[in-house]
């Protein structure tokens, strides 16, 4: 049972380099919640995970487990379990022996080990494989064994997972995702999951921490990240396709994009044109059937089977829009409507809250 707090953590691998791997951050990881660290390669998520696990000592700041300073303590003393990108199992041992290993090394007595191994194997669906050699299992089963080795220790404070689905066959990924979620609900453990895949992060986590270039951009529930991104990168990174981001002139409750006026859902002060961007998701941007809205030129239509997307041009800007089922497309001209409450204004890439009165 632990609450992990990061106090003023920052890290640089190379002290001579000007770009730190991790910029200064403070964060609290609540006991029993599932978190995901999401971001592109090089954003610092693995570094952050390794600082929490103790494999790296941060250049600055403190790591506190239940308010106890563990920054100087090595991994084995921190009571965490880690699952890596590829399954790490002991080849020479059976599944049961693999699961028993951490307990054996800590001197727990035999009958207690047996009971605990049976419990964890049952939770992970490994009971019928207990006597099989671990190396003969599929990659997905091996990852479950890796996870199991972390779960057998009843004093484990947190489970850290570093892109654990990397080597799993794509058609089987959802099974392991399902298992991970089931484990989380059954054991009520703090779990921190590192990934660059939005589906994994949004499926697994109660709270997703989006990172880029060593900073945390936003930490929120999946729904909130999708509906109200606080940073243009979050809007772009989450959602397929990502948020439309176009330069705009904003004043009052109107924005001008390529000369066209667009009604906003709130009032804003006058914002510097060079750094102001209007953000709206293709999911809330529609081509209108009856010609109402902003005039645009259609560049390309994409039939994705269950929905249709249109790539349209508003002046020099390219925008993605949803084509509703009942809308017919004739020629190159069309009109665009954007849901007002999903229209956001960003200044210097950060969300500006307007006055909604």
């Amino acid at each position, binding site marked *: 049972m632990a609450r992990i707090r990061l106090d003023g953590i920052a890290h640089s691998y190379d002290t001579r380099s000007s770009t730190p791997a991790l910029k200064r951050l403070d964060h609290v990881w609540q006991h029993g919640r599932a978190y995901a660290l999401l971001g592109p390669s090089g954003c610092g998520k693995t570094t952050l995970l390794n600082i929490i696990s103790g494999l790296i000592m941060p250049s600055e700041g403190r790591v506190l487990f239940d308010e106890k300073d563990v920054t100087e303590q090595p991994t084995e003393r921190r009571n965490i379990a880690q699952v890596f*990108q590829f399954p790490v199992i002991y080849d020479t041992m059976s599944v049961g022996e693999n699961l028993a290993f951490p307990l054996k090394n800590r001197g727990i007595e035999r009958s207690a080990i047996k009971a605990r191994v049976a419990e964890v194997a049952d939770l992970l669906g490994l009971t019928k494989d207990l006597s099989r050699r671990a190396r003969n299992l599929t990659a997905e089963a091996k990852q479950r064994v890796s996870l199991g080795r972390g779960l057998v220790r009843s004093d484990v404070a947190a489970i850290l997972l570093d892109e654990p689905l990397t080597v799993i066959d794509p058609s089987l990924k959802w099974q392991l995702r399902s298992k991970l979620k089931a484990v989380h609900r059954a054991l009520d453990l703090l779990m921190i999951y590192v990934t660059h895949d939005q589906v994994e992060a949004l499926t697994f986590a109660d709270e997703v921490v989006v990172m880029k270039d060593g900073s945390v951009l936003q930490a929120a529930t999946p729904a909130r990240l999708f509906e109200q991104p606080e940073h243009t990168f979050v809007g772009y990174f989450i959602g397929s396709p990502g948020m439309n981001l176009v330069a705009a002139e904003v004043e009052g409750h109107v924005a001008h994009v390529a000369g066209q006026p667009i009604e906003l859902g709130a009032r804003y002060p006058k914002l510097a044109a060079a750094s102001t961007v209007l953000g709206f998701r293709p999911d809330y941007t529609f081509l209108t059937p009856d010609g109402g809205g902003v005039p645009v030129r259609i560049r390309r239509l994409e039939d994705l089977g269950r929905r249709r997307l249109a790539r349209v041009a508003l002046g020099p800007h390219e925008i993605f829009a949803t084509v509703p089922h009942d809308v017919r497309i004739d020629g190159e001209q069309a009109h665009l409507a954007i849901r007002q409450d999903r229209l956001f204004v960003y200044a210097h890439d950060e969300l500006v809250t307007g006055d909604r009165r």
Partner: protein
Amino acid sequence: MMEKPLNNRAWLMVAPVFVLVLFSALLPMMTVVNYSVQDSLGQNQFFWNGDAWFRELLDPSKEIGARFADALLRNLSFSLVALLIEVPLGIAVALTLPRGGRAVGPVLVIIALPMLIPWNVVGTIWQIFSRADIGLFGAALTGLGLHYNVTQDAISAWSTIVVIDVWHWTPLVILLIYAGLRAIPDAYYQAARIDAASRWATFINIELPKLQKVLVLVILLRFMYTFMIYTEPFVVTGGGPGSATTFLSIDLVKIALGQVDLGPAAAMSLVYNLITLTLCWIFFTVMVQLDRRRYA
């Protein structure tokens, strides 16, 4: 799997190699086979002897058969002793080498130095080294009160040959095992730390299993080398004292060139070759099986 389009020009480029192999290996080999099935009445007159030499060779009651059996036994025991020392020693040293950083380069070079010395130079070095009067090694041992005399005492001769081989070739074991260890991803060591595994448990459960293929390769290489040993014992002990360190290769030369008994010598060399090839094939098959199991 992939059928490359046929390009016959390539054969021309390979032709010189064929010619070389023909003259340096195949033709001499055929000569040996020839001698092994013939006998001579002297004055270069040969007549067909069939498999007589072979049968005599493999019959321990015959003089030549006994000699062959003894020499073979000496080879096998030597290989065994050398392996038993070199492999664990090599592993132990490889485990202590630094895994990264600036020291790695120089350390590896220093370790590799003994391998770079030519065989007969090694022999000559140790010949002097082991002398009780002027050799550091010999003098040190006699100084300690040990009865050490390479030319007269069989045990001294044997141990010296073993020490020479260990000194000369353990670096190969060290380097190969080291490479094998470096190929183990860090995550395994991290997992072991998280599982609170002791150093020994980490060795037994992670390092040793992952070194399987390298170990088989190492044992294969060392076995072959020790089984075919010639230069070092020849230079240091000459096969003596008596026939204590007369290995198969040395015996062969004695019979062929010393006694000019070409028939038995030829037969012996063929059987020797066959044993070596068979053992090689067994090792290779084990390696392939290990590979196949890994991907099962």
